[in-house]
């Protein structure tokens, strides 16, 4: 792992000046060059081919497992009564959760004017799109007869029937498909100026045509930028409640049922915090190795890593609080089934999964109180990987422990995954990484125009306020005079 030189550490707080978000001797030209060069290599490096071969093979395994599932039936999974939701829904909630960091970074941090988001937003948004693709797969295939999945949508059909809108499962269909559509729009709209940069730098006919079509004829026009910024701000404002609603709706799948361990009002905020926690951990898991391999320490600085580590720590504490509060309420409610469900989680047959979750999600992130752990890439990466594991187990614990032992001991059971379950999970990672590698190969992995606009040459430092209150997306009120005089 390339060591990051000391000059690049901009994470120290100096209240007299704002830490630069782009380090080194960089200007607009070099930033464009550095980012575009990654997507413009005639051939990717050998490591890319190796990584792509592995992930594409895993994706092929996923395809084979789905084929096996469709031809044989849902019994190839370890599901049986009473555990009728196992790896399928665990994977679904896990991947949807991963998909939350992207829109959080693009939308919520944008509204809060966190300028550091510019270095990581494209990356995280792409991750969101691919994670939601993986997530959408599982509910579609777990219905058993996926060719009837269109029954989920309110389409007029020969049976003269409509779906049941009073079911949280149908709310999910709307929440996840809206989330995917809006995230895709956000990702694509954000990318138009950068695709135009690739078009203008194209050296071959095919690149110039393909990026030309994708960039829709962008020419950096002031009138276009004006509408573009407005549209981006509006999309951010719309995506903010959306991102909070999606995992809330996912949590309704559980909270609206009457099963002990599921039927709690803490679920929506707890799921949203967990989703952000897991999503940021996945951003770090992907970003740290790529940053080191491509030597991107000037664009993704130590400060960026530290900020993400702080968010992981904060959301990790919320998740830990929720785990504790669930136990408290189970005791305080005086409901014996509820109390049993939680004691059973910690001490029952799935205690191994529960304590894996506690170790990964509550204990491991505590390391991040220590500044050295936040600014040392390999330590941060280690914590992030543990959090990914922990967040998968969180969903497994919630779903499987609650189902396996509910009210009547005569109908208890123990879920064991089959090899098909395990290979399907592995295959979904393969699909995710394969899509991600294609993204790194063909699309600028940084929002170039946004990174430039937080650089000094972007004009942000000109004008009466320094440092805060100015961000692209804002309509300036009073700086324009000053700009004019300065330039004239």
């Amino acid at each position, binding site marked *: 792992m390339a060591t990051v030189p000391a000059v690049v550490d901009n994470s120290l707080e100096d209240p007299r000046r704002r830490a630069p978000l782009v380090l080194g001797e960089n*200007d*607009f*030209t070099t930033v*464009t060059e550095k980012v575009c060069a990654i997507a413009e290599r005639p051939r990717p490096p050998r490591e890319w081919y190796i990584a792509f071969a592995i992930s594409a093979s895993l994706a092929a395994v996923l395809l084979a497992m789905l084929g096996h599932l469709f031809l044989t039936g849902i019994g190839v999974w370890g599901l049986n009564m009473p555990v009728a939701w196992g790896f399928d829904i665990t994977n679904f909630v896990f991947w949807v959760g991963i998909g939350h960091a992207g829109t959080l970074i693009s939308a919520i941090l944008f509204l809060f004017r966190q300028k550091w988001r510019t270095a990581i937003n494209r990356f995280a948004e792409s991750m969101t799109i691919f994670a939601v693709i993986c997530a959408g797969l599982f509910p579609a295939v777990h219905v058993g007869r996926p060719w009837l999945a269109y029954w989920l949508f*309110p389409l007029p059909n020969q049976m003269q*029937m*409509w779906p*049941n*809108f*009073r079911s949280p499962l*149908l*709310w999910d269909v*709307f*929440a996840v498909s*809206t989330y995917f*559509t809006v995230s895709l*729009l956000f990702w694509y709209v954000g990318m138009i*100026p950068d695709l*135009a*940069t690739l078009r*203008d730098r194209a050296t071959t006919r095919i690149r110039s045509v393909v990026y*030309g*079509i994708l960039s*829709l*004829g*962008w*020419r*950096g*026009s*002031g*009138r276009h*930028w*004006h*509408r*573009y910024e*407005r*549209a981006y701000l*509006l999309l951010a404002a*719309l*995506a903010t409640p*959306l991102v909070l609603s999606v995992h809330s*709706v996912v949590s*309704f799948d559980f909270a609206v049922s009457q099963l002990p361990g599921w039927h709690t009002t803490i679920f929506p905020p707890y799921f949203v915090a967990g989703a952000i926690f897991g999503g940021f951990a996945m951003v770090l898991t992907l970003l740290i190795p790529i940053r080191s391999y491509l030597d991107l320490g000037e664009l993704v600085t130590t400060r960026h890593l530290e900020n993400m580590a702080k968010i992981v720590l904060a959301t990790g504490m919320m998740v830990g609080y929720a785990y504790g509060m669930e136990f408290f309420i189970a005791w305080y409610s005086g409901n014996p089934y509820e109390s049993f469900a939680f004691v059973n989680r910690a001490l029952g047959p799935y205690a191994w999964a529960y304590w894996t979750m506690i170790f990964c999600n509550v204990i491991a992130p505590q390391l991040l109180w220590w500044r050295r752990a936040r600014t040392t890439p390999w330590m941060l990466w280690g914590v992030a990987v543990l959090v990914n594991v922990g967040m998968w187990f969180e969903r497994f614990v919630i779903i499987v422990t609650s189902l396996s032992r509910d009210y009547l001991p005569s109908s208890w059971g123990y879920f064991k995954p089959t090899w098909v379950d395990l290979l399907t999970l592995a295959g979904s990672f393969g699909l995710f990484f394969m899509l991600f590698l294609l993204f790194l190969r063909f699309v600028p992995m940084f929002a170039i*125009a946004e990174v*430039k*606009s937080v650089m000094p*040459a972007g*004009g*942000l430092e000109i004008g009466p306020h320094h440092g805060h209150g*100015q961000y*692209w997306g*804002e309509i*300036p009120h009073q*700086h*324009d005079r000053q*700009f*004019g005089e*300065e*330039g*004239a």
Partner: protein
Amino acid sequence: MSEPRLSVVAEGPKLYGLLAEFDSVGKLLAAAERVREAGFTRFDAHSPIPVHGLDEAMGIRPSRLPLLVLGGGASGLGAGLLLQWWTNAVDYPFMISGKPLFGLPAAIPVTFELTILLSALGVVGGLVVANGWPQFHHPLFASERFRRATTDRFFVSVEAADPRFELETVRGLLESAGASHVEEVED
């Protein structure tokens, strides 16, 4: 009918306008302001980043995109409620767990999602239509220098179609505003 054909041949390539290159945000803003103050309306600025204060310098009126959000959101809200009420309570009423056929709390999630979905589609649709996308051909794309408009250079273009356009006056104006290079662009 033969007259227009002849005149096209006689005129040769038509002038689209003048394109001036600047090397900083400050100069771009100053130039855009001077072009606007000189009374031009058919001109544009081009930059690799969104520039603060360019709206005022160019005299761009506030966008009406927020109205589309309102329209999209209201349609989504209405459509969501109508869809759930009509399908579950009118066209195919069926009782599930004693729940009311149509109850507002259970209808909120789908209504909310449709509100957001149609608002977002409205914004992006409005952006695409108002910006005239996709527009794969534009006279400015013929300029070799203009390729840097998406990398590190700032440009002001003034169209020959502007009623006040006079080649030498505009060239002088752009040069005195600090342009590092001014070129003619053919249509």
